[in-house]
């Protein structure tokens, strides 16, 4: 029983980070119709921000707070200069965003010098509830994710910005003719998605070793989650992330770890193939 609780806790921590990544990818995909192949590298950029803050000595906490801001700003600049040219051609956008991802990844690889870097948890230690130890950092990850999800939901359903976003999502043409600047909304959406990716990177990096190649793993997992959940919904990607994250964390206990990682992708891909509309097929946010 103790083991089961600990296990569920670990899966939840990992899944929370996936939810953040997937939320960013999903919101960009459903709003602008393009899949951001650079999303994994935005996660990497967030992780790298924490590493830089940690190594210059201003502390991991500053890094965790800075990461979403830095990555969000990078996302905004990217949208203003490059991404907006691709809205009309989603297929070409794949190539363009992939090239952006490649550039970010290789710059960071050059800066890291090809080494793996370990970053200490800013919040170390554990607390005990009912005789069970829980890691502080992992609890912080879960709490942050819940706060972000709640914040997003309130923003979308209770504010006028959220109303505009929903309008632009439902019918961009009509929204434009009502005087809503969809261009500005798209820029904000992209920056927001990027900031979520940056936050996710900052939260996950103390648990993983930082290397330039972590991006692609998150990209593939996040994409499968978005497809599993269905594009254009709010709950869908979250559910998908939970499914993929749970599988990724749980399967290594069942089959050998070497086989588990590819198997997650194959299973998820097969489900998506058989049910392309996702778990939740109604287009609402």
């Amino acid at each position, binding site marked *: 029983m103790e083991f089961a609780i600990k296990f569920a806790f670990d899966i939840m921590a990992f899944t929370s980070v996936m939810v953040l990544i997937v939320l960013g990818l999903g919101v960009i995909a459903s709003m602008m119709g393009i*899949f951001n192949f650079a999303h994994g590298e935005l996660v990497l950029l967030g992780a790298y921000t924490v590493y830089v803050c940690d190594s210059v000595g201003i502390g991991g906490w500053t890094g965790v707070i800075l990461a979403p801001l830095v990555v969000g700003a990078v996302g905004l600049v990217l949208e203003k200069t*490059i991404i907006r*040219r691709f809205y009309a051609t*989603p*297929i*070409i956008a*794949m*190539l*363009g965003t*992939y*090239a*952006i991802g*490649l*550039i970010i990844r*290789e*710059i960071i*690889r*050059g800066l890291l010098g090809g080494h793996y870097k370990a970053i200490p948890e800013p919040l170390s230690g554990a607390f005990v509830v009912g005789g069970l130890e829980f890691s502080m950092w992992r609890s912080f990850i879960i709490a942050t994710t819940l706060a972000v999800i709640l914040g997003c939901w309130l923003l979308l359903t209770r504010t006028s910005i959220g109303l505009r976003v929903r309008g632009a999502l439902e019918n961009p043409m009509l929204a434009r003719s009502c005087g809503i600047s969809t261009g500005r909304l798209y820029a904000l959406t992209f920056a927001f998605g990027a900031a979520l990716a940056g936050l996710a990177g900052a939260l996950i990096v103390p648990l993983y070793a930082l290397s330039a190649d972590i991006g*692609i*793993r998150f990209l*593939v997992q996040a*994409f*499968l989650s978005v*497809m599993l959940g269905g594009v254009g919904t709010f709950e869908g990607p979250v559910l998908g992330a939970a499914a993929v994250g749970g599988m990724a964390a749980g399967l290594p206990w069942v089959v050998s*770890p*070497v*086989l588990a*990682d*590819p198997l997650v*992708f*194959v299973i998820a*891909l*097969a489900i*998506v*193939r058989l049910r*392309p509309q996702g778990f939740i097929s109604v287009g609402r946010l």
Partner: protein
Amino acid sequence: MSVATGAAARRAPGPRVRPRSILPGIEWSTLAVLVATPFVLATRPELVTLMTNILILSLLAVSFDLCWGFSGIMSYGQALFFGAAGYAIALVGRDLDFSQMWATLPLAMLVGAGLSAALATFLLLGRKTPTSIFVAFGTLTGAYAAERLVAGWQYVGAGNGLSSIKLMAFGAYEFVEGVAFYSVALGLLIVVYLASRVIVRSQLGLVLAGMRQNEERLAFFGYRVQVFKALVFTFSGAIAGLSGALYSYHQGFTGPTNLGPGLSTTAVIYCLFGGSGTLIGPVLGTIVVELLSYVLADTDAIKQYWTVILGVVLLVVVMFQPTGLLGLVVSSRERIGSFGLRRRPR
């Protein structure tokens, strides 16, 4: 003469003048240069090795071009077929002690074709038409999963890969790096090039061109678009397999990175830089990119960020020059070309 009168002159009725075609000229001169290379470089064996590598990689670039440039499948999985075939011939050499090229190269093509057919069946065929984004991500996922799987599999050497692969042989003759291997690579490239050319200029190629333009309309005409895509994908997988086998024989080594998305990306860069949608484009792209990287590799500052530069080049090409290097000299009309049997002009 002002611009306005120039435009008027172009619109003036009269006998249609066929624009001079440039592509055959480019193809022939590339061939001439490639044939002359071993004679020119007779005193520099390391450059012949480099050129052999380039020829082998341009096979991979051509295979990607058949997917993207001719049938609109964004495949990040070409390296999967490339690497799998490389592993197949390495294992045949190691476990069966056999490396006769008349058997192993067809085997490699079969491995590539088999894998790509399986992937195509899974991703493309079926009752529900997949989105092109899903296909792109599917191939990326396949390549990534394969890289992870191989990197952890002891039987195929795990992360270290397989080294000292048995040399490619024909009868008693063994091919080492050098002019002989170069000739084999060039010969195979020419064969593949001609075969691809026949395919993309045939009636099948016309269907592919229509598919690129408007997939939905072709479907309404009654063409089973996904089947055509799957066919081309399988063919390109066979070419990628051939390329992978030659690459492994030539390097004497194969590793997990040969299977992964990284190498697929390189193929994408070669093809788009040279000019997708033409067959000679990817070949030229491979030659230019690889020669540049060879020349620039001496400078440490550039070498470290060479991949970044390639990424920027890819981005610039995608944004501003989607037809690539060749698009600068070849008109779109000639790029798309004509199809079927050549008819005598009336």
